[in-house]
């Protein structure tokens, strides 16, 4: 059973192989617009061209062939020169004008090509497809390559790829740079320079004769007032420190108010005592 099946298939294949389309007397020529001499190159089904055919912006490629079925020239239903662009796989068919005798011819220039072809960087591949109804096997063979020669002066043809739904490139927001401080060394240097002014000030005062000789006298005359007055001045600085570190304004203002009142009330007495020393020519 298998043997007869295989034999039948072989016979069918052999019968098929017997009748098929082919083409002969095929040539491709490139003619410039001015009608100068065309460069004609012959090719055949078994021998495609190895060198690419150059097509300039005003040139026309002309393909001539004779279609044959089983060696006899005949007119096929389908006779196309299909040009394929390698990067995207896009194909464009160019039907050959075929006479009853089987002679076929087609002319292709750059303006006939789809705009996507003109933007391609690789050569275009041309194939000949010949087929028709009936049992004869159709043929589809690559025959030559086309290299487009673009005119450097002409503008590049515009092609906008159509919108297609798909994922878009990722965007990550670039943040503004955080505010930066200068190097810590510089900050430390200037901090120390500023901090060094404090002992410099006290030392220069000492050299000029600073003293707290009247402290015992003042405390003897009005101890509470002086302690309270000086304490309230220090306390005010303390309120400012608390405002810097943790308190908000609504916590600071009442305390500052209280401390201020204490300063005024104790200050009258304390500064009155200082006045008394001044009037006694001790200052």
């Amino acid at each position, binding site marked *: 059973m298998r043997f007869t*099946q295989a034999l039948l298939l072989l016979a069918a294949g052999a019968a098929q192989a017997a009748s098929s389309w082919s083409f002969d007397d095929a040539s491709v020529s490139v003619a410039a617009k001015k009608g100068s001499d065309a460069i004609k190159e012959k090719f055949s089904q078994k021998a495609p061209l190895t060198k690419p055919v150059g097509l300039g912006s005003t040139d026309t490629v002309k393909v001539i062939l004779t279609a044959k079925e089983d060696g006899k020239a005949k*007119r096929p*239903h*389908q006779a*196309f020169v*299909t040009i394929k662009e390698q990067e995207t796989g896009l194909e464009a*068919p160019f*039907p050959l*004008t*075929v006479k009853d005798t089987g002679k076929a011819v087609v002319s292709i220039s750059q303006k006939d090509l789809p705009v996507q072809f003109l933007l391609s960087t690789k050569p275009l591949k041309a194939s000949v*497809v010949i*087929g*028709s*109804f*009936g*049992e004869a*096997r*159709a043929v589809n063979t690559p025959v030559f390559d086309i290299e487009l020669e673009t005119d450097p002066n002409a503008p590049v043809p515009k092609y906008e790829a*159509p*919108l*297609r*739904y*798909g*994922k*878009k490139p*990722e*965007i990550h*927001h670039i*943040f*503004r740079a955080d505010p930066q*401080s*200068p190097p*810590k060394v510089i*900050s430390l240097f*200037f*901090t120390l*320079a*500023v*901090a060094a*002014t*404090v002992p410099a*000030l006290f030392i220069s*005062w000492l050299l*000029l*004769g*600073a*003293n*707290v*000789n*009247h*402290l015992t006298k*003042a405390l003897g005359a009005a101890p509470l007032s002086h302690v309270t007055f*000086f304490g309230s*001045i*220090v306390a005010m*600085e303390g309120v*400012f420190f608390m405002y810097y570190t943790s308190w908000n304004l609504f916590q600071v203002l009442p305390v500052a108010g209280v401390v201020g009142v204490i300063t005024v009330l104790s200050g009258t007495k304390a500064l009155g005592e*200082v006045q008394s020393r001044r009037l006694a020519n*001790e*200052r």
Partner: protein
Amino acid sequence: MRTLLSFLLLALASVVAAISTSGNRLLVVLDDVADKATYSKFFADLAEREFKITYETPKSDSLNLFNLGERTYDHVLFLPVHTKGLGPNLTPMTLLDFVNAQGNILLALSANTTTPTSLVSLLSELDITLPTDRNSLVVDHFNYDITSAADSHHVLLLPAPKPVRAGIKDFFSEDAGSKLIAFPRGVGAVLGNGELLNPILRAPPTAYSYNPKEQAEVVDDLFAAGQQLSLVSTVQARNNARVTVVGSAEMLQDKWFDASVTKLDGKPVVQTFNREFAKRVSGWTFQEIGVLKVNWVEHHLEEEGAPNDSNPEMYRVKNNVSYTISLAEYAWDHWIGFNVPESDQVQLEFSMLSPFHRLNLKEESRRLAAVHYHTVFTIPDQHGIFNFKVNYKRPLLSNIEEKNTVSVRHMAHDEWPRSYAISGAWPWIAGIGATVSGFLGFVALWMYSAPVAAKKVTVKKTQ
């Protein structure tokens, strides 16, 4: 006992059921109610999927797509009719209104009958171009069926189609094996360049379309050839209504379901894939597959020690935010989790007027009828009203557009780093300290100091 019986019946019914997401009222428009017999398997498959089918001829008076402003049918299936027009109830405008009302249309054409002008107008409105002479046939002298079209080559044999681009979900080529799709005596169309049009089945590169009446000898004016010919074309409108054009009505007939075909140079005898392909094409058109749904969207603040209640209305610049969206897909009769196709991504856009972030969402976890897609990102350093936008529109899938609006506020005055933490501020803080200590020292000195006696300079008396 009765409750048990009814439960069992319900379970049995739900096993067999396959319900479309957009209703089950199907209208079939055909020439002659006797045509039903040639498509009996196709209609039996549709009836098994719980469609309530009404058969009408185009000229019948009772045919009405709308009643009092509402659609009377959810889906329409057109088989080839021999009349030139489709009657006053199926004008192109009515059919477009039907699509705008989210009705789905499946059109089957044939090379044996001239396509009615109203259908050609409808298709040209959707940017699907049929040959102008309305009489055309697709042939391929390389991929035809030897057993039935050895001479005429008008029965094309094609492998089950893979998606035309990477990233598109594959609905039609699963489990095809070596089976081929037979496309007998069909019409090819050329699709426009819009993003809503997608071919499902394209002709092989060697195929072409010609007019058998006028171009029997030679093809002088070629309509289209190769992969530009779309044999099964689809349009999905922005409201998710679907229109499918099947170039060959004969491929839906009984004799091509499970037929045996032989391709030139192919395996000796191959079964046709037509029955399964017809099921999938009608399933896609009638919203049984390829329908997506958003179950929920959740976003919250992802910072240590901060409250993370779901979907707050306000964030702050440079907060870390986590976003999760749960997607489901309908597969014939139940919802399953949606798996993004290979090389495709669901993307989240965090945008004000234009996207500040466009991030790929990664699959985080799966549930019974949901897949969660998730990402964590940092809010840009721009305040304003922002949207979390997932805009997932893909060929052959229904549209997903989820927008959640949030406000993004500035840093509050107490959210900046303190000055003692800023090294550049140290000299200034030292200055304040120096001023305070100098002031206190001065007060103490002024109040409690005694004057220094001036050094008595003894003046040498001159004698």
